[in-house]
């Protein structure tokens, strides 16, 4: 089992604060700057990376980057500048978080085409799907069309292998409404409307994920699969207990026939659950309007949970469906080859939200994963955390001033020295946050799986919010390693990262390797 120290005991808040990290990285910045002035690119400052440990120093990259910039060139950059030894290739998604060029409207990084792909971006499977695997699902036609015949796995794996790099296929539960067959798979919200997300108990959906990872694992010489599913259950969604900026409690899902059937098996009363969520919807709407219950918002919310234990049970049912798919993905991949590794992306809300934390037991997750990519995006984390606080401060904690609520939540989460609410957007979260979240995850999995924190490299934020600098990327990466991580995954996608930030992360990785 890995050795770790609890954050409480080894409080690095003083020397791991953003200021301290910036100070420690100042030397690097100075050298980099000097190098630039002398006409030497930072790229040339370091010696080529030698594989000296078994940690995974990874990066997420979408297909478009290889098409735009060339496979060899991209691999050169990430290996030589970023010290990357593991690629997480975005193989299946319809989401822009992992695939596509820069998010439309955001400034382009200093590489790749400086033109938006909004007219061409589609999403889907960027490898070649083999129909024989998809016989048991209606979701058969998912090939991403926008890059022609380009098969990201076929194109990148051989080149990566030549360089001794590992390759994982990233698969994300993100869809678009025009995928053939999708209408049969959609969730149903509490008002009976079809949602745009897929039901995790729908047999077509379950069969699809198993088919997809089996197809990829059998058809390509990959090292494993990284599975992304950032979706939350109906309770957390209804409360807006994430970093999203809107709360629509009547859109809580899923109340379809498959959920109903599953609930029946588990002895959960479907009608009572629906009734509970309708009451919750009412509570949220009146809270948002400022109609204070006489006993207070928090008490009224808790009373609802006491009167309708089905609310929590239904939320747990959602998680059960989600985790069941993770388990099926894990089993399917291992059935192809026990040496293949399976990892799960653990979403950002896991950092901010104590309720969510309570529903995600690292030790339990470690039983169905070889590694966990724990999101510890500190730069965009500031505005996201602020949103979370504002969301819950508008409903269940509406009686508590937001600033006090933030401090209270910081204590629950073991965050120290983070910015006040009005400055969180511009300050971001500190490298200390990365360190603490890494340590928490390591302590949680108890050595049963690896922890690879996801590092924020240029993730877009609002115009007025903090923009990640190379120093930020360096400090965050360094904090993860200091926290005892088994590696890192630079996130979210190469196509939104500036090269200077990749350089900075690479420097921290090299330092970690050196020890």
């Amino acid at each position, binding site marked *: 089992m890995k050795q770790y120290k*609890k954050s*409480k005991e080894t409080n690095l808040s003083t020397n791991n604060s953003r200021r301290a990290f910036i100070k420690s990285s100042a030397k690097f910045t100075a050298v980099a700057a000097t190098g630039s002035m002398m006409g030497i690119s930072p790229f040339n400052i370091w010696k080529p990376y030698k594989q000296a440990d078994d940690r995974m120093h990874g990066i997420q990259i979408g297909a478009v980057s290889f098409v735009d910039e060339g496979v060899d060139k991209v691999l050169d950059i990430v290996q030589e500048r970023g010290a990357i030894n593991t690629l997480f290739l975005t193989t299946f998604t319809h989401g822009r978080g992992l695939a596509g060029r820069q998010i439309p409207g955001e400034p382009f990084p200093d590489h790749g085409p400086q033109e938006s792909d909004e007219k061409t971006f589609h999403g889907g499977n960027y490898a070649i799907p083999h129909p024989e695997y998809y016989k048991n699902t209606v979701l058969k036609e998912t090939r991403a069309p926008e890059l022609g015949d380009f098969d990201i796995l076929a194109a990148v794996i051989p080149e990566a292998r030549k360089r001794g790099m590992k390759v994982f296929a990233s698969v994300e539960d993100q869809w678009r409404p025009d995928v053939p067959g999708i209408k049969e798979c959609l969730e149903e919200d509490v008002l009976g409307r079809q949602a745009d997300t897929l039901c995790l108990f729908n047999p077509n959906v379950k069969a699809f994920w198993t088919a997809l990872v089996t197809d990829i694992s059998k058809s390509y010489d990959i090292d494993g699969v990284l599975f992304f599913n950032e979706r939350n259950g109906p309770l957390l969604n209804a409360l807006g207990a994430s970093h999203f900026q809107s709360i629509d409690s009547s859109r809580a899902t899923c109340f379809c026939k498959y959920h109903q059937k599953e609930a029946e098996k588990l*002895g959960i009363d479907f009608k009572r659950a629906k009734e509970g969520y309708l009451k919750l919807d009412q509570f949220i709407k009146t809270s948002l309007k400022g109609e204070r219950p006489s006993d*207070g918002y928090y*008490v009224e919310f*808790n009373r609802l949970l*006491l009167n309708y*234990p089905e609310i929590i049970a239904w939320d747990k049912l959602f998680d059960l469906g989600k985790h069941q798919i993770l388990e099926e993905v894990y089993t399917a991949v291992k059935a192809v080859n026990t040496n293949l590794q399976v990892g799960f992306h653990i979403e950002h809300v896991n950092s901010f939200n104590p309720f969510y934390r309570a529903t995600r037991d690292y030790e339990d997750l470690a039983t169905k994963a070889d590694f966990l990519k724990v999101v510890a995006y500190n730069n965009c984390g500031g505005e996201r955390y602020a949103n979370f606080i504002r969301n819950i401060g508008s409903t269940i904690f509406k009686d508590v*001033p937001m600033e*006090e609520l933030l401090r209270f939540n910081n204590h629950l989460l073991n965050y120290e020295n983070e910015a006040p609410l009005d400055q969180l957007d511009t300050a971001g979260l500190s490298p200390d946050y990365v360190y603490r979240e890494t340590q928490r995850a390591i302590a949680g999995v108890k050595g049963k799986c690896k922890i690879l924190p996801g590092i924020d490299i240029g993730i877009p934020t609002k115009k007025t919010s903090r923009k990640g600098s190379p120093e930020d990327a360096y400090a965050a990466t360094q904090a993860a390693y200091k926290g005892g991580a088994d590696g890192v995954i630079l996130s979210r996608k190469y196509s939104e990262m500036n090269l200077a930030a990749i350089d900075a992360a690479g420097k921290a990785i090299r330092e970690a390797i050196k020890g």
Partner: protein
Amino acid sequence: MKKTIGIQIGPDSFVDEGVEEVLDILQQKGAINTLYLSTFSYDRGITGRQIPGQPFPDHGAQESDENYFHGGNYAQPNARFYEKTVLKGEKLRAPDFGNLDIVAAVLPAAKKRGMKVYCSVQDGFNYPDDVDLVKNLAEVNLQGKQEGAMCFFHPEVRAFWTALVTDLCSSYAIDGILLFNERNGPLLNAIGVSHAQHIESAKVTCFCKYHEQEAKAKGIHFQKAKEGYLKLNEFVQNSLNGRRPSDGYYVEFSRLLFAYPEIMAYNQLFDQGKHQVLKDIYTQVKSINKDLEVGFHIEHTNSFNPLYRASRDYSELATMADFLKVVVYNNCGGERYAGFIRNVSATVFKDVPPEELLQINNCLLNYTNEASLDQLPKAGLSPDYVFRETQRALAGVSGKSRILPGIDVNIPARVKDMATPDDTYNATLAALKAGADGVILSRKYSEMWFSNLEAAGKAARDFESI
């Protein structure tokens, strides 16, 4: 309707000071028009002279009753009402005052003065060793030991409470019953979420066969509930010993509730049992005479603890009570509230500095301008607290039952000096100004000072003249 200006009073005071003399004092000094006579109780909170060790007030005997205080039924139990119960009411006669029947002694004198009389009946946390009959009806704790308070689901316990109020309501021309039951469920007890000064998560109740049966009937998995409470005990003990879970105390606690929904369900089962007894009593009293009134004492924890608040819905309680005596003891409330904060800071919220937790809790409870944690025991809670809690209760019952806040008149406190007359005046006036249907001066006449009683009376009279 005329405001109820009530007072809680035990038999000792009438014995020590004389019935007419006491009634004179109450009427003249305290403007009292309603008596809540401690009729059935084993608890010093509402019976007996001053709590041993506390200074005696400026009236009554100046000597402790420790050598004779026992408790029980201070009226004359009539055996025919207990023929079908195992717990024979006639054997629970309080021995403290020989043949004295407090209700028979006070009722005629009070009626002559136009005063209303309610019998206070209290379900205690425990019973004297010599009350053998109760032992077989006691709860079973998490360790399997039978002791302490009586189980709500034991059919004989329900039968006893019904028989007792039937006896009182049939035997005396009283105006009604005020029922006291301050007991909390196993979850709240396990995490020490009251103002009690100790946390005994290993001894939470009740896991007897009647609870098991009732749990089964309601679809609650008994073994899972027990398992959950054993894990909760482990969590609490680890927390008290400062063993921080890697995800934090609160997250670990919440995870336990997610993993064992039976913990919450079993706590609710306790409340259902408690409320079932309230309902039994209400129904029984009304079946004897629908004009008789039934009230429930709502304990102090209801003020401090948001989780407790959530489990007590005023609008639901109003369906089974004519009035609610809502405890708003502001003077002793300071140290009690601080005790609650310190308790939850030692377990579920151990990651939060207690002072910050207090501020957050104040926000959740809608308390403003109360003292800081270190000052709270000395400062007490403000009259504004009385005002807000009264208004909250009134809003909660929506006119379906009357609200009579319980006013702290010299309730002993460990740190705080005794309430001044001004404290009493302000608290009484705050309750009335908030719209209360009256007040109940608490906890017992035998611990109140005359100047405080006069202050309460002045507030009642001043309010009437406004």
